[in-house]
């Protein structure tokens, strides 16, 4: 499955008022190009921090399901944050990782996730429910299932590295991203 296809499966399953924190790089660009939403927080830098930002939102908005859409490079940069999420254990946190095994937006240099199973790290850290999907047809049912179960939950989606570099960049300014997100999240 291509990264774009994973997003095409996922995005329609997210409700308008559900906060989604996106990792930088192609994760942001792909999601922005397919379906821009006010409750999307797009990171243009600060690699590795989508997970801790998502944790902060989840702890302060326990009534909302908070989704983090992360990448393998981002997760590897902040493995310690998996422990923070597991230790605080917010039931409303859902961590989705699009794993293409490369740093695609910088030229597809290999990451370590071809050799290290990130979902096993999440599981042993203490995430409540952890799934790994490799087929496109499994994305929808597993995403919906994990979204409903009390978390913190972790869904790893293996994808092929085939990001279309003509995909635009996020056009909102960083300040606009902050304002819209805060307004949408309330």
């Amino acid at each position: 499955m291509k990264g774009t296809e994973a997003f095409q499966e996922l995005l329609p399953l997210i409700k308008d008022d559900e906060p989604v924190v996106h990792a930088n790089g192609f994760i942001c660009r792909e999601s922005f190009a397919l379906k821009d939403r006010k409750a999307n927080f797009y990171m243009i830098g600060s690699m590795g921090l989508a997970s801790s930002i998502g944790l902060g939102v989840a702890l302060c908005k326990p009534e909302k399901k908070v989704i983090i859409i992360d990448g393998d490079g981002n997760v590897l940069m902040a493995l310690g944050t998996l422990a923070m999420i597991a230790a605080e254990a917010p039931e409303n946190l859902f961590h989705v990782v699009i794993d293409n095994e490369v740093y695609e937006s910088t030229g597809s240099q290999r990451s370590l996730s071809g050799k290290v199973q990130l979902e096993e790290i999440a599981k042993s850290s203490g995430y409540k429910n952890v799934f790994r999907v490799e087929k496109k047809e499994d994305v929808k049912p597993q995403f919906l299932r994990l979204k409903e179960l009390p978390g913190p939950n972790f869904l790893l989606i293996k994808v092929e590295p085939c990001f279309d570099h003509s995909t635009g960049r996020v056009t909102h300014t960083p300040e606009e991203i902050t304002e819209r997100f805060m307004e949408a999240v309330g």
Partner: protein
Amino acid sequence: MPSLTSQSFIKRLIQEDYKFFTGVPCSLLSGLIYELEDQQEARYIPAVREDAAVGLCTGAYLAGARPVMLMQNSGLGYSLNAFTSLNLIYHIPMLVIMSWRGKDGKDAPEHIIMGDIDKQLLQTAGMEYSLLNEGNCDSVLQKAKKKIGEEKLPYTLIVEKGLFDERH
């Protein structure tokens, strides 16, 4: 009895509506962190690294809280990219309480260089700070409130050795 104690300072921060705390410990801040752990109205979340603490504070702010991060000045290196590529450009404020190890070159070797350059690093990044002392608590918190509330930027309070009790 000193007028500013770990207990009185934490109470004061809670009065100012700072109720979400995270950070990485420093012995100079140990009294503050133990006080925080005892509070009903505030929560302290241990962070694994200073940049993760900045991320956590960012999320808390986006969800309506007034976050505070505690760290040793050694953590400034880890968190500087988060401040420059996230908080300063997205206008996401937080209160930073940073201990000053390596003051006047009198400390363990690993603290000497950072103790000398940390204020310059903050200045270069355009991040305002104040040196907290026994007598200026009200005025520096006022400055922080302005920076955080109006300009929506981080503000740092620097804590020297001996200002708060150490519990270790």
